[in-house]
């Protein structure tokens, strides 16, 4: 539906450290990266590698210590209308129906209720929940609730969709279905997608490029191009080879 050509992200000399019980712990060290408009970039890394921190800085929820992020040439300070975030938890408002939740993002931006709901209905249908528009979150399964979260993010028609382990809490079967759905949405919506995951197969299934964040000090971030036709086939030999390559990166093979 949205056909924007923006959504280009450049990350320059980005550093961030946290102080944990008086000790400063660097999680991101002078990271440089360009994310192309319309690309799907998946960030993987061991826990503590700063992948979620990077995503939160891109979202504008946290500030970098030094360096910075620019979107389409404009420096990022705080949250912005061209970005939407999908969290690991659906984060639905329990007192709103599915329709109310999906329209929420537009409504807080001042879009009139009727218009917001009309657009919300389109995206509710897109994630296959048209029959559940009037349901309350407590009536939904985990997968359905996350679809609602995805629809809410799409409804504001962002140029950049930031996903923080969006499928991490789902069971294996639901997860595979949702990965296919994300791949479909990404190809239909023409949106730049930046996603954090700890699931390597998920990364290969969705990514144009995989960014591997180093855990140890002095390690360098690495980018791997996933040069596979879409829709991707998990059992295909090249898919499996990419999986082995990523496992080697983590010292697991």
């Amino acid at each position, binding site marked *: 539906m949205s056909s924007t050509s923006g959504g280009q992200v450049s990350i320059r000399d980005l550093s961030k450290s946290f102080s944990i019980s008086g000790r400063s712990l660097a999680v991101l060290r002078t990271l440089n990266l360009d994310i192309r408009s319309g690309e799907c970039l998946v960030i993987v890394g061991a826990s503590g590698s700063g992948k979620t921190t990077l995503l939160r800085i891109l979202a504008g929820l946290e500030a970098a210590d030094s360096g910075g992020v620019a979107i389409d040439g404009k420096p990022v300070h705080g949250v912005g209308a061209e970005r939407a975030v999908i969290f690991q938890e659906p984060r639905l408002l*329990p*007192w709103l129906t599915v329709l109310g939740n999906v329209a929420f993002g537009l409504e807080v931006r001042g879009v009139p209720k009727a218009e917001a709901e009309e657009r919300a209905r389109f995206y509710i249908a897109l994630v296959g929940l048209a029959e559940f528009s009037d349901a309350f979150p*407590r009536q939904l399964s985990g997968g359905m609730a996350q679809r609602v979260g995805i629809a809410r993010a799409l409804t*504001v028609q962002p140029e950049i969709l930031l996903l923080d382990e969006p499928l991490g809490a789902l069971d294996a079967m639901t997860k595979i279905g949702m990965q296919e759905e994300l791949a479909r949405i990404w190809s239909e919506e023409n949106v730049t997608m930046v996603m954090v995951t700890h699931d390597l197969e998920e990364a290969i299934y969705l990514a144009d490029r995989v960014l591997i964040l180093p855990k140890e000090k002095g390690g360098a971030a690495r980018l791997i191009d996933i040069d596979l036709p879409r829709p991707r086939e998990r059992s295909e030999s090249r898919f499996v080879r990419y999986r082995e390559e990523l496992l080697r990166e983590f010292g697991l093979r």
Partner: protein
Amino acid sequence: MTLQHIEQAASLGTPDSTTSLGTDFLRLGGRAGIRFLSRYGVLIAFLAIWQVSSSAGWVNAAVLPPIDMIVAALWKGLAGGTLLGDIAISLQRAGLAFAAAVLVAIPLGLFMGQVRAVETALDPILQVFRQTSALALYPVFILLLGLGEASKVFVIFWATLFPLLLNTIGGVKQVDPKLLEMARVYGARQLTVFRRVVLPGAVPSIFVGLRLSATTALLLLIASEMIGANKGIGFQVMNAQYNFQIPLMFAAIVILAGLGLIANQALVSLQRRLCRWSNAVD
């Protein structure tokens, strides 16, 4: 619930039995009857035992008069109008105090829950006030405000304020910060976040406070009317006892219980309407 399950299992167990319309009706009627009994059976048994033991002379009927005498006294008081004036004045006292508590506690609680510094500064004194029995303070209020309406309404107000205030603060503070962050990501401004996330999120907890406060209001109402009042339900309870009009005393107590039940039920149905999204009422 369990009884229903057993019945269903029994009817499932005999699929070949041809059930006529008549037995269906019987079964439906029986089921409703069982549901009624499982809910009100103990209450009915309690009243029946009271009635029988009082009229049979097992207990002193002068102290515990039979139910029918209490009902007769209640009817006489209501139809004759003698108790109506008491109900009116009591409702006015409790209602004024409760309304004032709502007007003060909810806005103040919403504010205190939002602003950490205010809450930190006020919490110790609130804890001290809350732990000080309002009844112990009643003599103080009488000294300050006199033995009239003002001290009565104020002591009820004082006691109802704290449950509501503390539950409102708690409700605001327990709103999931992840939801607040979500709203922020969509660009919601402070006031929008408050109106669309904090306030609805605090409503269930505010209702817990409202129900506690309503109960407290009636409790303090009676206590305050037992000292220096010449009208009101609490006064009637004491007065009837002094004059040994025991059925009338119980009639006043029944009215009190009734008011409590009605207030609670009104709040529960209001909560059901406002919180359709959560089935966690009670």
